[in-house]
């Protein structure tokens, strides 16, 4: 049964391990995955704890549906206080780790303390063992995974590991599994590194009883048909996520040269079709791969075609690698993007953050805020591919003054660099934005400004806002499972109704993250994909838990509020440029210079933006400072937090 999967509390300082069941009432309140992790984080960390100290608690989890016969239940979630932002740290990855953890008997790990020497966790059919990892330290992400399999003599072991970047405490180091799957954002790999935890290796052969197997199978089939019949998923399934990059760039929504332009020109060599050619050449016509149980298969397989890493196998490059190593630094060669993508996978670092930070440094260099003395000889101009690759190495190994400085993350780096460097940093709550440019899309701008983990597209982005769907369709989507009769606009440049869409998407994404399903299987890029209604059914068929779509919505809202409470406890305030629900001034002051006619010249309007935030708070039941009111907390059953149910 999915419901008999356990939670383990692991103290790396003492070596104590305690295994507990997860009570049904806790399940019904938080389901699992990110939602339950948020509850655990709020309950198991103290205000102001050092993100890199033993008191920070790292949660690792699968969703409540992990490995069941729902659809693409592959996601693993990581949560802790972020060393990058000092606020909520939260990252999610696909692959095959969470299902293996579930077959090994566990849904949640709560990891505290700090080991004196490098260790890894071995989790096998209900047993957890802390093992020496001295021989793994220094290894890349794939080297580590293969070495663990070899050591334990089992090629079916799935591991979540850190690479050199995590060991070197780069603030935005990630956790990786397989070749490409990354829990990328907010530095969860850095937290593992600070605990001397190199890897978590899972292997299990324990049955997960499906409550209603025949229905679960049939519903899964329906899900898959629904998912694979969506045009957007068919395109993803053949071109991978680069297709989104291509379309967005064409339209004018790709940050270029940090934030100087909103379109990367003359980028033929990194257009999705060109990338597809390279993949086909090396890997044949069938070169797509995917995560556990997923029929979208959005990752391409490739070999680097030329240069010092020629012939190396990797997967991707996804949407974000094209932005991070192509558009933002204005390096438009496939070789560079594919090499950058390979290096971040091997070193275990967030591609979004490192690409964005290097582009920021490039702008500072061109402005003279950084000099060649600071860069120790690196000619850090935009469009210098070699400089980009060199900086990836330097940051991951903290080499040189600038590598070491940038490894601390944008805000600490800006404090060290000084002058007006901060003004050029495209961040929210201390986390850099991905490569997208939201000046033409108020809904997307509101989403990154309010995201609970900082600037990000996977917290609340109403991406379908770009499709100009008829209002009637928008209303169908956005007034379920709770009624909404306020304004909604098909116009992506409008401000009306956008706060509700952002609020709705927050709950939608929190929902999938609690279930452990991939976002490509819900209302993210496709308007016709499953959400609350369908989840109620798959939850029942697979686990036997009966919950209405509205009750799942309530769980999502409850969990999102806990994330808010955590951020508030750590000192976030509405208008703080470093910790608040804010945007860099450039969004308001610098008009888009390129792209389609409906993009050129646009900025975000300050007053309307403020109004959107007010409205967004009101939808949540938060006061004008963004603090949940006593009434809201009571409604969500959060008036007695921390309540330590687990």
């Amino acid at each position, binding site marked *: 049964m999915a419901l008999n999967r356990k939670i383990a509390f692991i103290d790396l300082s003492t070596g104590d391990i305690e295994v507990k069941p997860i009570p049904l009432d806790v399940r019904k309140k938080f389901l699992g995955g990110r939602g339950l992790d948020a509850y655990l984080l709020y309950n198991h960390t103290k205000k102001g704890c050092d993100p890199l100290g033993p008191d920070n608690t790292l949660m690792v989890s699968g969703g409540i549906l992990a490995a069941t*016969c729902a659809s693409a239940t592959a996601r693993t979630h990581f949560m802790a206080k972020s060393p990058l932002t000092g606020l909520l740290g939260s990252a999610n990855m696909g692959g095959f780790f969470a299902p293996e953890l579930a077959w090994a008997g566990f849904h949640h790990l709560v990891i505290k303390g700090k080991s004196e020497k490098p260790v890894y966790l071995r989790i096998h059919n209900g047993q957890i063992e802390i093992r020496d990892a001295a021989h793994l330290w220094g290894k890349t992400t794939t080297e580590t995974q293969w070495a663990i399999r070899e050591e334990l003599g089992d090629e079916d072991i799935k591991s979540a590991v850190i690479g050199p970047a995590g060991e070197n405490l780069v603030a935005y180091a990630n956790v990786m599994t397989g070749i490409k799957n990354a829990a990328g954002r907010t530095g969860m790999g850095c937290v593992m590194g600070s605990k001397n935890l190199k890897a978590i290796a899972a292997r299990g052969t324990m049955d997960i009883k499906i409550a209603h197997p025949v229905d679960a199978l049939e519903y899964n089939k329906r899900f898959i048909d629904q998912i694979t019949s969506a045009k957007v998923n068919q395109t993803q399934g053949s071109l991978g996520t680069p297709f989104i990059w291509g379309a967005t760039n064409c339209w004018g929504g790709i940050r270029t040269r940090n934030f100087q332009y909103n379109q990367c020109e003359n980028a033929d060599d990194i257009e999705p079709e060109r990338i597809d050619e390279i993949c086909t050449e090396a890997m044949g016509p069938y070169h797509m791969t*995917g995560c556990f149980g997923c029929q979208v*298969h959005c990752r391409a397989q490739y070999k680097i075609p030329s240069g010092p890493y020629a012939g190396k*196998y990797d997967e991707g490059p996804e949407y974000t690698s094209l932005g991070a190593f192509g558009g933002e630094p204005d390096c438009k060669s496939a070789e560079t993007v594919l090499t950058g993508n390979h290096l971040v996978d091997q070193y275990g670092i967030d591609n979004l953050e490192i690409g964005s930070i290097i582009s920021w440094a490039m702008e500072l260099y061109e402005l003279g805020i950084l000099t060649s003395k600071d860069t120790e000889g690196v000619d850090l101009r935009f469009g210098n591919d070699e400089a980009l690759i060199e900086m990836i190495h330097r940051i991951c190994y903290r080499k040189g003054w600038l590598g070491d400085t940038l490894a601390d993350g944008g805000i600490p780096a800006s404090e060290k660099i000084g002058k007006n460097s901060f003004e050029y940093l495209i961040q929210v709550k201390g986390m850099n934005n991905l490569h997208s440019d939201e000046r033409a899309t108020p809904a997307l701008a509101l989403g990154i400004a309010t995201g609970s983990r900082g600037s990000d597209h996977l917290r609340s982005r109403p991406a379908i806002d770009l499709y100009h769907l008829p209002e009637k369709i928008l209303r169908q989507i956005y007034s379920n499972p709770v009624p909404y009769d306020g304004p909604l606009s098909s116009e992506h440049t409008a401000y009306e109704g956008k706060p509700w869409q952002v609020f709705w998407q927050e709950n939608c994404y929190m929902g999938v993250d609690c279930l452990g399903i991939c976002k490509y299987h819900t209302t993210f890029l496709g308007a016709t994909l499953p959400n609350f209604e369908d989840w109620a059914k798959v939850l029942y068929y697979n686990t036997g838990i009966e919950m209405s779509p509205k009750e799942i919505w309530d769980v999502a809202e409850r969990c999102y509020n806990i994330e808010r409470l955590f951020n508030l406890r750590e000192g976030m305030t509405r208008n703080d440029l470093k910790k608040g629900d804010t945007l860099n001034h450039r969004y308001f002051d610098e008009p888009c210079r390129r792209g389609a006619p409906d993009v050129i010249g646009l900025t975000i309007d300050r007053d309307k933006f403020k109004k959107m935030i007010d409205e967004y708070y009101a939808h949540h039941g938060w006061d004008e400072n963004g603090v949940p009111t006593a009434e809201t907390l009571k409604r969500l059953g959060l008036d007695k937090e921390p309540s330590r149910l687990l």
Partner: protein
Amino acid sequence: MEKVLMINYQKCTGCRLCELVCSVMHDGVSNPARSRIKVMKWESEGLYIPMSCQQCEDAPCMNVCPVKAIHRDEDLGFVTVDYDVCIGCRSCVAVCPFGAMNYNIIDKKVFKCDLCGGDPQCARFCEVKAIEYVDADRISIGIKRVAAERLSTAQRDAAALQAAM
């Protein structure tokens, strides 16, 4: 006409949905250890090959079984184990050249693909068609086409070469 599973591993994305649905269909549980099909992977090369029973004509498992517990299903043609007769010696596991006879440590039983009684779930769920359930006489048609394509390209190349000389 007898039907067989046709596997084209080049199309396989490695998602293991086939393993999942196989175990759910037969045992009502999610557990690849109970799946009759297993995807062998070379992750660092991006190679995934689903392995299942070939329902051999001259089946080694059938030949080796000391108590004649294995026979061929008359309607669907698959090789099947009669658990009332089976003594659990695992000789069939050892002798299968494809590793397609499995042993389940939980129930202590050998188990193998039974084509899901005529509606193979692995084929039904594999949307990229790496597994298809086809009439036995169609099994080589895909390979023929690919080989023929290779041949015609080679011939074209040869002709071009000759013309250039």
